[in-house]
Every structure is written in C-alpha cells, then in structure tokens.
C-alpha cells in the first residue's frame, strides 16, 4: 500500500490491532447498512470485552447480535435494542451493560467526536433519566443538557461504492449512521460493495471523504431484511 490506496486484501488484516476491551463504533440502522464482513471477522477472532457503540445490536443470528453468542460484548451504547433474545438474557444476567442514548444524541456524539467537539448542549433528554447527572444550562429561556462526544478505537462502516482512496458513497437509507461513525474512529475501516478507481467518483458527490478512512475492504453482503413489508402492485 502506497500513497492514498487504502485497500486491504482481507477482513483479518483490516482489523489488525483489534484487542480485547476496545471500543468500536459501528454504522448501520437495524440490519440496514451494517458492516457484515467486519462483524463476522470479529466473531472469528473471538475478541472479547468489547464496548460497541451502534444504534442497534442486530438480531440473534445476524448483525452485531452474533457477537453476543460467544459473549464478546461487555457494553452496548445504543438507542434501541428490542429485536434480540440473547441481548435480553445477557442484560438480565448482568453480563451485558447497556447505555441507552437517544438516537439523535448518539448520531451527534459520533459526529462531534470526529469533529473535535468534546461536548455540546441539546434539549433531548432534559428532564428524563438520560439527563440525570448531566450539566443543565439555559439558553434563550430553555433548558439543555451537556452531552459528551464519542470516539472509538475502531470505527466500522459499510458503504456502497468507494474509490481506492477511501472516498465513500452510500446507497439509499443504508447511509444512516455510517457517515458520522466513519469520522469517529482512531482507525476507521470501511467495507464496500463496489470498488472503483480514483477519479471515477464526482468529487462533489462523495458522502465521506477518504481522509476519514484508514482501511478499505471489498465485501460480500447478505443484506438481510428485518421487516419485509410490501404492497400489492396496483
């Protein structure tokens, strides 16, 4: 690898340096736009005591849920974790910790972490359990709480297209948490469906500039659907 070519040949090499006890930030919403290949590799490696920052924790046998099977996760920072029996078991037996964070606050914490903003005020959560113990301050007569940003040892994201320099484009709502997550990793790894050459993407149409991406792999994707809802064609 020379210059700005971020392409790594294997998921194993892409997670080089991943250790027990680290904090990972993962993109995705439900099972949509999740880094499937890197999650599988974490399971294969058996890395343990992970803190994972991700809006959801997958389902029992797909997405981040598969890391619960071997109890690799110590703590989740999420806004919604309802789709998962193993999750419930481990939460109840006390082996899994959960830090519930409002969805918008979670996205903004990642964005702030990547943007060098250590903390910001938000009205979200004021007067609720989320606001307990946090600084409160009034601006223009309204109460806001201070939320601190999040960064991770690794950030794992999934994109649709990328050039070798790591410039990313996401497809439809598979974008979701991936752009803010990508900015917040000390090491950010992206897995993509389609790899193109630098110059193939319009510079003004890149969702995540390559500066945020340290390593890039081309993956294969199941893209499981959580709620397949359809209408009858008219």
């Amino acid at each position, binding site marked *: 690898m020379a210059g700005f070519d971020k392409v790594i040949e294997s998921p194993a090499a892409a997670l080089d340096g991943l250790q027990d006890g680290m904090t990972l930030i993962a993109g995705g919403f439900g099972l949509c736009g999740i880094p499937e290949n890197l999650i599988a590799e974490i399971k294969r490696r058996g890395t343990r005591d992970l803190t994972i920052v991700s809006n959801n924790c997958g389902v029992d046998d797909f997405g981040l849920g598969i890391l619960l099977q071997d109890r690799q996760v110590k703590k989740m920072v999420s*806004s919604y974790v309802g789709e998962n029996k193993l999750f419930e078991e481990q939460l109840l037996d006390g082996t899994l910790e959960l830090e519930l964070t409002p969805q*918008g*606050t979670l*996205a903004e914490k990642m964005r702030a972490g990547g943007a060098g903003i250590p903390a910001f005020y938000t009205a979200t959560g004021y007067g609720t359990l989320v606001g307990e113990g946090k600084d409160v301050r009034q601006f223009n007569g309204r109460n806001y709480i201070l939320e601190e940003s999040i960064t991770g040892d690794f950030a794992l994201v999934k994109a649709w297209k990328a050039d070798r320099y790591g410039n990313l484009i996401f497809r*439809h709502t*598979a974008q979701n948490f991936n752009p*803010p997550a990508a900015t917040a990793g000390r090491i950010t790894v992206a897995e993509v469906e389609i790899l193109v050459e630098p110059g193939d993407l319009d510079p003004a149409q890149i*969702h995540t500039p390559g500066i945020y991406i340290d390593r890039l792999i081309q993956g294969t994707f199941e893209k499981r659907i959580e709620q397949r*809802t359809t209408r009858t064609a008219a």
Partner: protein
Amino acid sequence: MALSREQLAQRVARELRDGYYVNLGIGIPTLVANYIPAGMQVMLQSENGLLGMGPFPTEDEVDADLINAGKQTVTAVTGASIFSSAESFAMIRGGHIDLTVLGAFEVDVQGNIASYMIPGKLIKGMGGAMDLVAGAENIIVTMTHASRSGESKLLPQCTLPLTGAACIKRVVTDLAYLEIADGKFWLKERAPGVEVAEIAHQTAGELVVPKTVPEMQL
C-alpha cells in the same frame, strides 16, 4: 363510541396542512399516512435518514437498502432526499419538522410524556422519540384514553420514566381531542357518541370542560 385505530389516524390527519414535513411514529401514527386529504401534499420524514417516504414497495421493488425507522421496507417519493442520521436529527432537533405524531403510555397536565420504558419490563430503548419530542414545535400524541385495564393515561403527573418534559400540547385519544396548557387538559372535541362524563371519568389529570364540546369531524 370510542374511535378505532383507523379513526384516530383520520382525526390526526385533519391536523395536516399542505406543504407540511411530518414525522409519524410507529403504530397508530403510521396509519395517518393513509388519510392525507386529497389535493394536499405532505412529505414524510423517517428519522433513519429519508425525507419523502413513500408506500411499501411491491414485491419487485423491495430493496434492503431502503427502509424506514420501523425497519420496514419502503419506497421514496418523487422529490425525496436521503441523508445521514446526523443530518436527519439536525433536521429534527433544529425544529424543521412541521408536525410530529407519536404514541405514548402516559401524558400529564404539564405536557410531560412517557412513551419508551416500563420499569420491570425489558428496556428496549427510546430510539428517536426523545429527540423528536425535544425538537418539534408541533407534536400530537395519539393513544387510547385509558389502558386496557381501564386506568387513565392522562394524568396529573406521569408515573413512568419520561421521554420528554413539558413538550406536549395536543393529544388525540379514542375518546377526545384535548389541548394541554396552564397545567390542565382542555377538552376541545369528543369522539362521536362519546359523552363528556365518560371522558371526565377516564381523565385523571385536571380537565377543563367548556359549555359545549363539539363532536369530532373525521
């Protein structure tokens, strides 16, 4: 008679205005999309990053990369835009959504809302609800007036952990349309055929009843 879920959605739909950007929560709020008045344009925001959510796809159109905040496969309407979760909640938190409709377990006379957590039951999380109630100027809560066991959900003070404090001003239940102001529920409309006495009986928080209470138009 108490409104059906579909009728609740119809009543809420009467609060839509042409050109509104609207976020509809999971459950009854989702049904509101079926009752957008003819000739009116409304754009639905889904907080996972879609402005301009369309109907469910046909079998042929199903795309794992195009879902809504309920994780259902959806479509995008003409003129839609798609963006990151950070941008989506910037939009929500910044007050750019014209109307937010969501369900609740409880609402109280201070405009507090509890909708995400019942202690002792599994905590699933607040998702985007805390951001939505904190960010929107204009929120409608829609829910049944009482729980299945008959306990009022319109309280002097919420008993469950709050989703948001002092943020709810309007509630549409299966019995009535009420506004919240000055630490009271103000009865504005009753469901067709429902007596004011029944509403008063089912409302635990202080209720102000005007001389005449019109029936809801659906």
